[in-house]
C-alpha cells in the first residue's frame, strides 16, 4: 500500500540535477510532494492531480503518470537549500475514504 520511493538517498554537488521517483501499486487520485529538513515540519512542494492539473512550487517540476501509477520529482540546478528528505504522498481511496499514504522518503544532500 505504501508507495515506493527511489532512490533512498542521493548526494549531489551544487548545480547538479536529480530525479526522485514514486511508485504505487494502487490507483491514484493525486500525488503530493513534501520536503522536510531535519527537525522541521514537512513543507508542501506540489500536488499533481489526475487530468494534468498541478498546484505548487514554480521552480520545481514533477510528472504524474496515472496509468503507471508513478510520479517523478525533478530537481534541476540543485541548490544547497534543496537538501532534506523528500516524501511523496499518494492519495488513494481506501475503506471508503481518501487517504494520503506517504513513502519512506528520499534523503537528498547537496554539497558545495
Amino acid at each position, binding site marked *: 500500500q*505504501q508507495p515506493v520511493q527511489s532512490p533512498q538517498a542521493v548526494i549531489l554537488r551544487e548545480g547538479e540535477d536529480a530525479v526522485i521517483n514514486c511508485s504505487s501499486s494502487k490507483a491514484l*487520485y*493525486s500525488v*503530493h510532494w*513534501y520536503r522536510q529538513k531535519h*527537525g*522541521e*515540519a*514537512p*513543507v*508542501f512542494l506540489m*500536488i499533481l*492531480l489526475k487530468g494534468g492539473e498541478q*498546484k*505548487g512550487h514554480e521552480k520545481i517540476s514533477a510528472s504524474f503518470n496515472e496509468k503507471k501509477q508513478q510520479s517523478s520529482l525533478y530537481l534541476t540546478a540543485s541548490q544547497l537549500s534543496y537538501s532534506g528528505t523528500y*516524501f511523496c*504522498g499518494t*492519495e488513494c481511496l*481506501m*475503506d471508503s*475514504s*481518501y*487517504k*494520503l*499514504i*506517504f*513513502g*519512506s*522518503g528520499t534523503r537528498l544532500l547537496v554539497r558545495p
Partner: protein
Amino acid sequence: EAGVTQFPSHSVIEKGQTVTLRCDPISGHDNLYWYRRVMGKEIKFLLHFVKESKQDESGMPNNRFLAERTGGTYSTLKVQPAELEDSGVYFCASSQGSGRIDNEQFFGPGTRLTVL
C-alpha cells in the same frame, strides 16, 4: 498567519506512563490529521478529523491511543499506557476543503516522543 503548532516539541517518558500531545491547526481549517514517523520509515497516517468528528481512524495502532478534537479547534492525542514501540515523531497537519485530498496539508513541526 500562524502555522500549525504542536506541543510539546519533545517528550521523554517511561514505559507505562501517559503522554498527551497537542496540536493547534491553522484557524479555519476543518481537516486535521495525525501522522507518525518512526526513524527512517514512512510518515504513517493515524487519523483524520473533520471539524470535531473522526472521519477516519483506521491508522490508529491500538486502543492505547485516544484522539480528541473538542469544539473542532485544537486536538489532543493521548497515549496510555505508552510502550517502547510508540517512540517516534508525531506530526499534525491541517487543511481546507472536504472529501478529496486535493489541497495542501500544512504540517506542524512534530512532537518527538521517546519511550524508555
